[in-house]
């Protein structure tokens, strides 16, 4: 329980800080605005604002005949905040624009898209709404979920609206008919009655209609979007534009803008003020850690879960993009982003100045802090002073390590860096290390899972976690994350996610019997085993080809070909497989600017590595055939190839078979190294399960047994086949 208090307290503190900060920024801007525009402050002035007559939900007349709508509420609220008055004149869209160009009005707010052509004439505010076309169907119609389902059907759209031009542009491709109608009411009625299968319209208009209960539902993401802005005549009323921008950003920050949108658009309101342009419909590869519960870990069914995962998924949903989450381990996740293998990283990653050199961070989404934990039954260590002469562990690249190292000399202890949470806890549980320094939510989660430790010190050196992209790339993804996060913080979704993990931690697993654990982990482990076997089989096929090609080069008798083969063999036998894997997954793609998925990179690595050994097996096999065999064949008039094929190779294959089976077993075992790349093979699955339940003894026993059984069975089978074929 104390954890949730802490996180709440810290969230409250952060909130207060942000308010203070914003107030300060606001003051600064206010002051500078006063100074810059001393001749025309907005306070007390009255501005004429032109608008459309009816563009629900942005502007329309309510039951009592007053102008209302998103635009109206927005401009009135900003005017109130900035201390000026507005005189709203509903002139119609074209007339509103003319009123501004002729000086009749000071500004226009009319659901007006920001376009390059209009920028020639107007100065626009920051965009306040992202629009776009969506498709809606009758709420109870589950047969139409995408454009493909429209074949042979009729859809409706509004005359002169973007929805119509979009629907027409895809009508041929998907084989439907478009019917243009003059009013929104008619369109909705057509769909509600079943005369039309779907309606295409601007998303806020659709959303408003649905919120008003027209009986439809939206089924596709936004298409062909544009942004709405407030505009003044180019070069005039700069202070009005500035006041609008300031007011808008204040409203976004304190959630009142979101509330305003919700009022008109209901549950279809965007999470924040607007979806960020340029991310909709895209899929981003998001790298994360493998074992950083409660931020990311695999649940019993082997799916990634945790605060980070829920956060990014929810933001993706709100912002209309897809994420492909890759659990690679912390270091590998950062490398994946720097090498371009991933677009972003969310991995309980502290925002530090050093990292800011390489990454662009989002707004912080979690405030952490380092604590020290010791074995639950250890009463000798209650403070840093008790650590003198002892060894402590901390996680590579984590704040806990930095903090521990910063006080190590002062208190006279040694710091050992480890890569995995479960390894760290085992070190402390077994007494190899006296204490562990780690981020408080992680420690708390592990203790709740029954890792046998207890926390003995208060939080130190709080740091903030951020989502990161490679410096200078994916700015729209970062923007979308910030927008989505701020929306979630505004509507309480964010706190719900935090509470889900820190208030009621998943206590499953630790009290389970061995058999229960075995049954529960088997599906994930079998999935891993399948990938292990697939990677092995693929790699061996390619390795055999490489082995035959280079093996023959080695016995060709041609010096140049022989040295080519020798260089290949020397390189791949002379470097560690792990380095090769890193090279092909991180190094080469960075250099060449390509993306390799982990299976491809893994198979390339294993193929080339095993290929080098196969080359030697092939060479050895051929050379171990008596030279008299080749001479006898050649003396009969057979050429080199014929002699090889008929006489040497059949005998060499017999000699090579045991070595080949041996290499097969080695390659199968080597696939486990690909776990470091996040390749979800058997060893990786084992790591994932332990990261969740900390039961390393049982899980590694099971994983080891699985390898043993499979390798023994396959070896026996291979030997039997060998005996049958080679008699």
């Amino acid at each position, binding site marked *: 329980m104390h954890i949730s208090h802490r996180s709440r307290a810290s969230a409250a503190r952060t909130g207060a800080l942000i308010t203070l900060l914003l107030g300060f920024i606001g003051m600064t801007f206010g002051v500078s605005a006063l100074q810059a525009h001393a001749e025309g402050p907005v306070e007390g002035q009255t501005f004429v604002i032109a608008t459309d007559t009816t563009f629900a939900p942005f502007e329309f007349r309510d039951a009592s005949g007053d102008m209302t709508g998103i635009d109206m509420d927005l401009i009135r609220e900003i005017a109130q905040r900035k201390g000026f008055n507005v005189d709203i004149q509903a002139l119609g869209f074209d007339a509103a624009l003319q009123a501004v160009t002729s000086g009749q009005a000071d500004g226009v707010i009319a659901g007006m898209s920001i376009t390059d052509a209009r920028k020639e004439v107007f100065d626009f505010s920051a965009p306040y709404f992202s629009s776009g076309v969506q498709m809606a169907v009758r709420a109870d119609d589950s047969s139409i979920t995408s454009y493909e389902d429209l074949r042979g059907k009729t859809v409706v759209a509004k005359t002169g609206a973007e929805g119509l031009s979009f629907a027409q542009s895809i009508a041929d491709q998907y084989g439907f008919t478009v019917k243009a109608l003059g009013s929104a009411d008619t369109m909705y009625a057509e769909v509600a009655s079943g005369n039309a299968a779907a309606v295409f319209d601007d998303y806020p208009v659709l959303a408003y209609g649905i919120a008003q209960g027209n009986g439809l539902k939206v089924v596709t993401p936004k298409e062909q979007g544009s942004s709405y802005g407030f505009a003044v005549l180019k070069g005039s009323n700069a202070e009005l534009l500035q006041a609008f921008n300031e007011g808008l950003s204040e409203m976004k920050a304190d959630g009142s803008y979101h509330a305003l949108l919700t009022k008109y658009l209901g549950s279809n309101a965007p999470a924040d003020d607007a979806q960020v342009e340029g991310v909709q419909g895209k899929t981003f590869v998001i790298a994360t850690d493998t074992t950083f519960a409660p931020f990311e870990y695999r649940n019993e069914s082997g799916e990634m879960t945790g605060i980070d995962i829920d956060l990014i998924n929810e933001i993706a949903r709100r912002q209309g993009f897809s994420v492909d989450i890759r659990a690679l381990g912390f270091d590998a996740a950062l490398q994946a982003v720097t090498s371009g293998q991933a677009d972003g990283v969310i991995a309980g990653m502290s925002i530090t100045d050093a990292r800011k050199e390489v990454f662009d961070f989002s707004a912080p989404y979690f405030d952490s802090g380092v604590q020290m934990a010791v074995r639950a039954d250890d009463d000798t260590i209650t403070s840093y002073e008790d650590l003198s002469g002892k060894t402590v562990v901390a996680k590579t690249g984590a704040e806990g390590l930095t903090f521990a190292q910063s006080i190590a000399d002062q208190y006279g202890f040694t710091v050992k860096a480890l890569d995995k949470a479960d390894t760290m806890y085992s070190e402390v549980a077994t007494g190899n290390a006296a204490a562990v320094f780690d981020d408080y939510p992680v420690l708390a989660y592990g203790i709740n899972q029954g890792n046998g430790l207890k926390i003995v010190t208060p939080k130190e050196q709080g740091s903030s976690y951020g989502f990161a992209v490679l410096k200078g790339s994916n700015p729209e993804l970062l923007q979308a994350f910030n927008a989505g996060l701020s929306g979630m913080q505004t509507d309480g979704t964010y706190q719900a996610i935090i509470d889900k993990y820190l208030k009621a931690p998943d206590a499953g697993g630790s009290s389970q019997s061995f058999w229960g654990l075995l049954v529960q982990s088997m599906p994930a482990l079998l999935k891993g085993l399948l990938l292990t076997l697939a990677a092995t089989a693929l790699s061996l096929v390619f390795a055999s080809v490489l082995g035959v090609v280079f093996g023959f080069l080695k016995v060709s008798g041609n010096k140049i070909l022989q040295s080519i083969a020798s260089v290949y063999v020397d390189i791949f036998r002379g470097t560690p497989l792990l380095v090769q894997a890193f090279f092909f997954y991180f190094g080469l793609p960075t250099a060449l600017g390509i993306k390799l998925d982990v299976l491809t990179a893994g198979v390339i690595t294993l193929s080339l590595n095993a290929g080098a050994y196969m080359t030697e097996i092939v060479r050895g096999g051929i050379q171990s055939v008596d030279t008299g065999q080749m001479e006898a064949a050649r*003396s*009969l*008039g*057979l050429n080199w190839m014929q002699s090889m094929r008929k006489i040497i190779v059949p005998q060499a294959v017999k000699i090579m078979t045991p070595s080949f089976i041996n290499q097969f077993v080695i390659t199968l075992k080597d696939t486990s190294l690909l776990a470091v790349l996040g390749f979800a093979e058997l060893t990786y699955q084992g790591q994932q399960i332990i990261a969740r339940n900390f039961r390393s003894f049982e899980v590694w026993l099971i994983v080891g047994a699985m390898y043993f059984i499979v390798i023994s069975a396959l070896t026996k089978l291979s030997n039997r086949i060998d005996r049958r074929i080679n008699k």
Partner: protein
Amino acid sequence: MSESAKTMIEVTDLHKSFGSNEVLKGISTTINQGEVVAVIGPSGSGKSTFLRCLNLLEEVTSGKVIVEGRDLTDKNTDINQVRQKIGMVFQHFNLFPHQTVAENIMLAPSMLKKLSKTEARSRAESLLAQVKLSEKIDARPAQLSGGQKQRVAIARALAMDPDIMLFDEPTSALDPEMVGEVLDVMKALAAAGMTMVVVTHEMGFAREVSDRLLFMADGRVVEEGDPREVLANPQNDRTKDFLAKVL
């Protein structure tokens, strides 16, 4: 040995070096059709190397080897074609252990002459009859005695119907009681008019069967002539010395 006999092999100033070690130091000789030439000499004298130069199992360092009018040292000569007409029998038989006796014999005819399976099989049968091993046609080499292996090797070498047969110490790896059966086959071949070059230690065979004897020492032919004369009355000191030891 009539003057009009066709020249089968013509060797001119043949030199062969392995690295800096010169094994053949200028050998010239001519072998006619139907002639049986025995090559004798102490070990290390270059007998086997000389023989292996005749079908280019060893590359020639300099000099010329012309077989049935074709210059083996010419890069444009298709050596595989020439070899089909030169059978070779090795000291250690070099039978293909993964094939049966029949397959050993049928390999070259079916691959190079494109004989059908039945044709190749009947060829193997008649060759095996010739070496008196008909009953072993489906045996594996590992099931044969040394003498039987060498007779199969001879049959295999005859399978392409060669004009010349080279024998590289064909009886040296055999137990004494098996030497006779191999020599009998070779005698029959000689009697049938085959051109043969035989590197051997069998002085009896050289005396009785060969038409001409080459005595080699230190990479040179130091004495040659009618075998009965050379063996009975050697002129060169090296020949005398060698014969004193082996006879």
